[in-house]
Structure formats: structure tokens, C-alpha cells
């Protein structure tokens, strides 16, 4: 069992550092974002389970050599406070660590979900007051601002897609359709759920640089996934032009201030999105 614990620990380390450090920017993932997303989700899932699993096995090894006996031994420890001979304080620490890590991850997921839901509700209230529904496009609202912006606010029951007057002015009909189909794909494919798991992962393990990389890269792959879905409805040229025009930002009121606090899609990521449409 110690050997199994060490193997799992090795897997955990592999998936916590070298693998997520190598994955970002992989061209095969950019060609097939669904595959990339699947791999990232497996890395996170298996990484988390092997981290906890190795600690559990390490702790269990002190109670017995096979798992059922070890479980029995642990149960006796909990109920009768009896420790087998030869058990060490380290094995108990390993078990405690597993318990702590599990609680930490679940708690952070819960907090992240609750926080996001609150933010979403607040933003939805604001958008209700500041935008009007577009009668010709259900679920879509229009804000009266010159900056070309498009985003969606995915929700459990209702999702809102928001377009700005500046966007509609700058884009032609097919480019606008590209934007709308892109946002619709986010909503339909529930990208918000994938993203929230990686956000929680990042918040849980802030000291792990790869957790940060992972959420950025997953966000980018989700954009590419939505791009691909938009391509089922519009041509590559229209989508590529729409991306460029919106990124340029048109006549932004507070341009300098914005570049200081750069939004999520960094130049490198935008270039990657644009290049795969070429």
C-alpha cells in the first residue's frame, strides 16, 4: 500500500506541476478545443483525487496492508480510539491532511459558486435597469454606449446576452451574427460551469502557479470552442473581423485607463484565437 501511495503521490505531483506547465499553448488543443478541454478537466480531476488518495493510502498503510483491513482499523480508531501497534503520528497526519484538503477544496468550490451567483444577480439587476430588451432577438439586451462590447451573463435559469449600440454600429450583419452565435454557444454549452470549477481550483491553491495557468488556458479554450460553434453559422472571415474590431475597442472613452488594467483576453490569447481562423 505504501508503494501505491507513492505512485499516486507521483501522479499527483506530475499533474500538479509539469503537465499543466507544458499544456498551455499546445497546438493540438487549439485545433480541437473540445479535446483540450477534456484533457484539462481530466488533469484537474485526477490531480485532485490522486493528491487526496495518496495521503489516504499513506495514512491507511499504518493500519493494515490491504485496504479493507485498513478501513476496519481506521473505523476502530475512530470508534474505540484504538491504534494498532507500529502506527506512527505521521500516518495520522497524512489522514488529517487528506481530510483537510478535501474540505478545503469543497469549501472553496462552494464559496466560489455562491460568490459568483451573487455577482451575477447584482450584475443582472444593473443590466435590467440600464439596457432595453431587443425585440427582434429574444434573450438579448441593448446597452446604449459607444464602446463595442458583447458579453453574456450565464445563469441557471435565464441567460442574458448584452450587446452595445457601438457594437451594432461597427459590425455588419454577418459579423454581428458571429458575435451572437459565439455568446449563444457559451450559454448553450454551459461554459460557465467548466469555468467555475477551474476558478475554484485557482482560488483553492493560489500557491500553485499551474492552477492559475489552468484557469486562463481553459478560459481561452472555451473561447475557441465558442468560436468553432459560431463558425457553424457564419464564415471565418466575418468572425475574424468581428474579433479584431471588438478588440480594437473603437472610440473607447477611457482607453488609457483600460490598458492599465488589462481585461482577461490578453494580446497573446487573442492572437491565438485569430490565427486559428486564418
Amino acid at each position, binding site marked *: 500500500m505504501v508503494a501505491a501511495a507513492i505512485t499516486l503521490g507521483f501522479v499527483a505531483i506530475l499533474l500538479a506541476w509539469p503537465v499543466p506547465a507544458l499544456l498551455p499553448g499546445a497546438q493540438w488543443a487549439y485545433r480541437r478545443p473540445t479535446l483540450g478541454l477534456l484533457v484539462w478537466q481530466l488533469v484537474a480531476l485526477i490531480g485532485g483525487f490522486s493528491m487526496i488518495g495518496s495521503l489516504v493510502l499513506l495514512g491507511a498503510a499504518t493500519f493494515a496492508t490491504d485496504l479493507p483491513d485498513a478501513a476496519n482499523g481506521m473505523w476502530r480508531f475512530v470508534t474505540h480510539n484504538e491504534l494498532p501497534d507500529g502506527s506512527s503520528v505521521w500516518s495520522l497526519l497524512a489522514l488529517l491532511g487528506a481530510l483537510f484538503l478535501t474540505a478545503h477544496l469543497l469549501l472553496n468550490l462552494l464559496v466560489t459558486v455562491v460568490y459568483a451567483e451573487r455577482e451575477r444577480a447584482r450584475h443582472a439587476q444593473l443590466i435590467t435597469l440600464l439596457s432595453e430588451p431587443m425585440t427582434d432577438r429574444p434573450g438579448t439586451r441593448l446597452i446604449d454606449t459607444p464602446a463595442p462590447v458583447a458579453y453574456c451573463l450565464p445563469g441557471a435559469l435565464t441567460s442574458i446576452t448584452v450587446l452595445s449600440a457601438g457594437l451594432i454600429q461597427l459590425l455588419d450583419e454577418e459579423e454581428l451574427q458571429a458575435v451572437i452565435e459565439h*455568446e449563444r454557444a457559451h450559454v448553450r454549452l454551459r461554459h460557465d460551469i467548466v469555468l467555475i470549477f477551474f*476558478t475554484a481550483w485557482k482560488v483553492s491553491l493560489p500557491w500553485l502557479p499551474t492552477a492559475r495557468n489552468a484557469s486562463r488556458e481553459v478560459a481561452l479554450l472555451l473561447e475557441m470552442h465558442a468560436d468553432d460553434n459560431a463558425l457553424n453559422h457564419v464564415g471565418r472571415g466575418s468572425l475574424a473581423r468581428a474579433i479584431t474590431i*471588438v478588440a480594437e475597442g473603437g472610440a473607447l472613452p477611457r482607453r488609457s485607463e483600460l490598458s492599465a488594467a488589462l481585461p482577461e483576453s490578453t494580446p497573446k490569447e*487573442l492572437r491565438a484565437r485569430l490565427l486559428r481562423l486564418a
Partner: protein
Amino acid sequence: MNSLGELERTVMDLLWASGESLSAYDLQAKLAAPEASGRELAATTILTVLSRLENKNFVRRERDSRPHRYRAAAGREAHMADLMHEVLGGANDRAAVLERFVGQVSNEEAETLRRILAGR
């Protein structure tokens, strides 16, 4: 979006446009005007909307006024600036609830994107 939300928006628009505090009866009269909504609404409905808006901190009730008078807590422009700040960046990690089409980039980077677009 529900019709209550749309009613909230109409009430806020009236409060923003008037710039002063209004009672539910003032709002009732303004709402009935054809250019607002042309709808005859019960005063209790309007009071419900106002108390919802008060809970969300969009309006403030003036103390000691009978009937109660309400005014917009902040101007439309201030709320719009908040909204745009959230949309165009500045949101923190946990608040990443929006799925933007594209974030905005600097002028130099926009030039690079243009070149990629031209090269395709």
C-alpha cells in the same frame, strides 16, 4: 427578463429624468402618460417596485415625507460607469461571471491583430 424588471427600469428612468424625489402617486401619473408606458398601474404595484429598488440600493426613501417620496440613489451615468468598468475589465478573480466576446487591447496590439487579419 420579467415584466417586473421592465417596470423597475421604467420607474428608474422616470426618477433619473425628473432629478428630484417623487411619490408613488407622482410616478403613477407619469406612468399613465402615453409617452412613458400608457399603463394604468395600482399605487400598491408602484410601491412594491419602489421597495424592491430600495432594497437593491437604487433608490432612497426620504425620511419623514408623507406620502413617502423616493429619489434615485445615484445618476444613470454613475451606474453605467460601474457597469462598463465591470464589463471592460477590472473584475476580480471570483467575480468572473461574464463571458465576454473579446476583451479590448492596446493600440499597438490592435495593429498586430490587423496584420494577422490582413494576412489571412
